[in-house]
């Protein structure tokens, strides 16, 4: 409880009365619209997931029991999509948190032009996903016209057709490029709040840079790293635009993640029931992460 947050105690009786009435009235509109925004689609998704419902085939409608789920778990595409979702998630997390931590330490040290370098480094985060994906796919990764291909041929290597040979790795590269600045930005803020005296004391006691990093910086960062991992997980579980504009889930189902599978079921095959069952799986997955994220934020919240 902070000192500025108990105004009611200093108010006279009638004013306190007034704020008791006004307060909830001001919060109510936000609560109501958010409640509707959450509950209505959630209930509908659950409902549809137990229904036979295809937009192009109006003859078959009705209660489906667990058929949609049964179909989902027997569909090899579903398991591939879960696997792809997981690979994408873990790979991007390892790359962004690993490099992000190192870069945060580097950008905390004084060097000429640091502020400009930092601004350049975090820029990719502000690029819209469709632009990131198409720039990488066409200008950088194109086997004939791209920069990587040109570099490879300068070195005498055969050019790589990234989206044909390593499609998932190509998507991972793009998504990592978008999220590394986020990790860097958050972790840099956390590094900067590190107590200098503590580091100074460690240095005096003869701790080298590596020891300082592993025994002081890293433990200090653990909380921030946890937050970065959880927030990124929420977004990475449902990466969509990058896949939509580069591979459309292909070749075959090589880059189909859960989000793209649900999209394809719903808006390409018009299978509302099946897509909803997939949606429920996505919601459950996200909620497992959300539980831990909300708990760790709650610990920090002072009202």
């Amino acid at each position, binding site marked *: 409880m902070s000192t500025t947050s108990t*105004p009611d105690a200093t108010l006279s009786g009638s004013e306190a009365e007034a*704020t008791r009435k006004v307060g*909830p009235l001001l919060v109510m509109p936000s609560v109501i619209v958010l409640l509707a925004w959450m509950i209505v689609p959630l209930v509908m998704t659950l409902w549809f997931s137990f229904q036979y419902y295809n937009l192009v085939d109006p003859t078959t409608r009705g209660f489906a029991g667990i058929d949609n789920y049964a179909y989902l778990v027997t569909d090899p595409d579903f398991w591939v999509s879960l696997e792809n979702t997981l690979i994408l998630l873990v790979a991007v997390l390892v790359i962004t948190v690993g490099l992000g931590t190192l870069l945060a330490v580097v950008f905390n040290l004084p060097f000429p032009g640091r502020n400009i*370098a930092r601004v350049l480094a975090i*820029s990719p985060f502000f690029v*819209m996903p469709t632009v990131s994906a198409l720039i990488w796919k066409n200008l950088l990764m194109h086997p004939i016209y791209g920069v990587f291909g040109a570099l490879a041929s300068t070195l005498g290597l055969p050019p790589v057709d990234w989206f044909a040979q390593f499609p998932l790795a190509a998507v991972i590269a793009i998504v990592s490029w978008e999220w590394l600045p986020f990790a860097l930005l958050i972790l840099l803020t956390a590094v900067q709040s590190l107590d200098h005296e503590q580091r100074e004391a460690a240095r005096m006691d003869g701790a080298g840079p590596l020891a300082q990093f592993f025994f002081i910086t890293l433990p200090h960062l653990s909380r921030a790293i946890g937050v970065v991992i959880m927030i990124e997980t929420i977004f990475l579980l449902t990466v969509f635009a990058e896949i939509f504009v*580069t591979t459309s889930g292909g070749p075959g189902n090589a880059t189909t993640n859960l989000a793209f599978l649900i999209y394809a079921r719903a808006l390409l095959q018009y299978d509302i029931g099946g897509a909803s069952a997939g949606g429920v799986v996505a919601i459950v997955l*996200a909620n497992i992460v959300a539980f831990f994220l909300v708990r760790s934020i709650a610990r*920090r919240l002072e*009202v």
Partner: protein
Amino acid sequence: MRATPLQRLLSFIFGWGAALLLFFPIAWMVLTSFKSERDATSPGLFFAPSLDSYRDVFARADYLSFALNSVVISVGGTVLALLFAIPAAYAMAFHPTHRTRGTLLWMLSTKMLPPVGVLVPIYLLFRTAGLLDSRSGLVMIYALMNLPIVVWMLFTFYKEVPNEILEAGRMDGAKTAGEVWFLLLPLTLPGVASTGLLSLILCWNEAFWSLNLTSAGAAPLTAFIASFSSPEGLFFAKLSAASTMAVAPILVFGWFSQRQLVQGLTFGAVK
């Protein structure tokens, strides 16, 4: 902090190395946007710069309508979210009750609902209500999508206003509405501005709902850029010119709001 010359040299090399590598795709995009289509397909540094690609993109009569859609939808979504959030954040920061903490955390948890999980019902509801491919539909979605973040950020800023100032205002007879309008808003204007800025950035770059709920009429720039993905339409220079124009304004906004961004994106969990 003191650093040895070696540390300085290493951090200079690694810091600038990383910065240049990370920025390279953006720089290359800007460079390519000034090439002709013929030059754009050969990754050379030397070429005769031209504005042809920009001219071509503008010549597509609909470019301006996509840009306008982006502006209207982002600003609309942000203003709508602020209208709902300002009173709520004010009440929770200055007149907290035993429910405030729970309400804040619950609002945060609504942000955790993956959009793809509710794609089907939202699409069907929009179809029924005639909101598919409409700006007002996206404005609503974006406002709701950002409302929890906006409330949280405003709440954080309001908490930093010393209560004595409001007390003095009340002594002078300011009512709640006047208190918000004449005291709080001017005091927290920087906070409201950076909250709005973050919301604008998030709306501008949003590419799930805009791709799924719009086709032509209300499609913003994210969807316009996506239309370059067809294999028949590989025009590198025009793609780069259109992308540069779509990214530039928000990149500048982003540079100015890095600090507040951390607070907004982590819900105050990292300081």
